[in-house]
């Protein structure tokens, strides 16, 4: 229900406070009424026709960096961790 998808702002109609956004090339109308500012090129979270917030590219990069720092260098094509194949439900 709270599903929201990242969409890129392509055009802005300031008078109507509406934008055209692109979801991987699929264009949709989105209301900007919940945002104080928004610019063409911003990625926003789209939910029931409204842009809820602007996605911060800087914070996204930092989060991925934190993952890498927590786990050490990530090896590509890593095998599935063997030790966790249990059902997990046994632990009550």
């Amino acid at each position, binding site marked *: 229900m709270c599903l929201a998808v990242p969409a890129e702002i392509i055009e802005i109609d300031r008078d109507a406070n509406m934008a055209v956004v692109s979801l991987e090339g699929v264009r949709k109308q989105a209301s900007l009424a919940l945002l104080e500012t928004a610019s063409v090129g911003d990625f926003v979270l789209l939910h029931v026709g409204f842009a809820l*917030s602007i996605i911060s590219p800087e914070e996204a990069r930092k989060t991925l960096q934190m993952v890498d720092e927590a786990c050490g260098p990530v090896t590509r094509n890593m095998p599935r961790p063997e030790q966790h194949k249990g*059902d997990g439900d046994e632990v009550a």
Partner: protein
Amino acid sequence: MKWLDDFRDRDRAFALANQLAEEVQPDRSYHFMEFCGGHTHAIFRYGLQDLVPQTIRYLHGPGCPVCVLPASRVEMSIDLALNHEVILCTYGDVMRVPSRQNRSLITAKAAGADIRMVYSVSDCLRIARDNPAREVVFLAIGFETTTPPSAIGVLQAKQEKIDNFSILSNHLLTPSAINHILDLSSPEDGSTAPIDGFLGPAHVSAIIGSRPYQAIADEHQRPVVVAGFEPLDILQSTLMLVRQINEGRVAVENQYARVVTETGNIQAQNLVNKVFERRSSFEWRGLGAIARSGLCLRDDYASFDAERRFDLREHKINDVKGCKCPNILRGEMKPTDCKLFGTVCTPDNPRGACMVSSEGACAAYWSYGRHMAAA
């Protein structure tokens, strides 16, 4: 898709799982409740329960507004659609929610009611403009994520004098529900599930910010990590919770910083506060009445309130007998512990809250075959 694929990276997910295995303490277990249906769905879809160490268990919380919409509110909507001859517009998810005797909005539509599925409240306003001679009601449901658009719908209707538009509000507040669940959770006597920490709501927090969880963490002494909906988000947040517990810390941390700030979307909060106020109490399917957990329209917008406009009354309808949703929503039982699961209660014919929407724990168990693994 940009900003999704990066957070679905298989190798990073495996690295996080390995890191979790290294950091969990062998002599204890970790029970984390993910509040949101979005998290529940992602945990099943990506098989995260099987990826993390066996000592970590995800408990599936009540954060699916479709699932927790009680039969009494569905019945009220059906009554409105059938007996007041309105055009009832709602989000698609709501259509199948069962009322008593397997009635739902779909069966009401089949019986001739004018019920229309919409993508946005804006579509409902358009239908109201196009049908000035008809009453058009927006059956609004959702948590804090979905409430701001409804507020804008009301404000726009007032501004444009769309007098045939009104809202039947079933908007809910998440912090009230988290508090309620933690009030019930008392690990000392062993009668209910211990909850060691919370994966905090993702898109709800985009609106309300991470700050409202501080009071919950302080009062109940449980760590909260606001987590995004992608698999890496959930695994990283799980690691953050494990670390807090291992270090004996209780804090609110924000893993989903690319979207969530401490204060949230102030503009959206102001719009919601302008239009809505808290009800004294609201009934949740499976959880019962929770004080100050629902929103209704303020007196200034009374003419847009369908409950007042059509003098609608809520009649209590008991949950289905034998249904274990209340225990499942509180993290005390698994779907497979319920006798109705997969027998009379299936996604095609849901009886209980957790089977209604794909975000419910039972529906996720069913859809991703966990019931077969457990058998």
